[in-house]
């Protein structure tokens, strides 16, 4: 077992912070579009 070589062998996961913010903005825009559609349709 070669501890020195492998001690920091980490499996990183997740996105960068900036990417996550843009992802949330995208999801928010999509959610808002569908929400407006819903409210308009049920009030027709």
């Amino acid at each position, binding site marked *: 077992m070669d501890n020195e070589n492998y001690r920091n062998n980490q*499996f*990183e996961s997740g996105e960068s912070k900036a990417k996550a913010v843009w992802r949330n903005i995208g999801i*928010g825009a*999509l*959610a808002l579009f*569908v*929400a407006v559609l*819903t*409210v308009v349709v049920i009030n027709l």
Partner: protein
Amino acid sequence: MNIGDKLSDFWTKFTGSAEVIIALSVSVLVFAVLYFYMIRFLLDNKSGGLVVIFVLSMVLGAGIISLSNMDSAIYLVIPAIYLVILIVLYSVELKRIIWAHMNMKLADVKHAGGRSYDEEKVENCISEIIKALQNMSKSDTGAIIVLSTGNIPSQIIDSGVKIDADISSALIESVFFPKTPLHDGAMIITDTKIVAAGCFLPLSQNVDNIPKDLGTRHRAGIGITETIDVVSLIVSEETGIISIARAGKISRYADFATLKKTLNKYYWQELESARK
């Protein structure tokens, strides 16, 4: 009434009074928040296809209902069906989210009183845990130990056998000795006590970032750290390699110094901050 007339009526209603504008804006906000969390949850669980189908069905449904004389309230059936599908398909993931929120509150209550530890006792616990891990590593005995701050959900504790014993390497090694009833589950350690053993942990769903050669024990060890703020110490049955999982990440080939550092951090930082 055609679609043009319907939209014209809606616009007249929308611009009619402040109350209507406020009511419609609040409705939009409520639906937007609901859809936001629903879409984000689906994307987090690699279900982008379901999001596309959801948006398309909402657009298509809007078209059909606008052009026909159907009751427009029927439109709400589409998001309702989606919510039911989400609850049925992702019950495990939803349960984890609920656990994660519950655990924060549990930890706050549990450690509200606060108490400090005898340094000698903590050093003894640390050396006993390390000794047990290294002995099990030498003999290729599979093991999984979860270091919690008292934030483990009762469902997980109840899935095993409650022990409530002082930490000793002999007890840890006995529990994980092959062919004993509790060896296949996880041992939960809180403070200076072994709380339970033989517990079932949720498996990690992160298939992309965990190597295929890591088995169910490692996935369980990582899985519990994805949703709850705990540290898992895992000994591989195949290779004897000791791994440390924290916040959904695994660090393999832990040696004495790494284990000591992790356990020191657990006892002197994480438990202390949980008590505050």
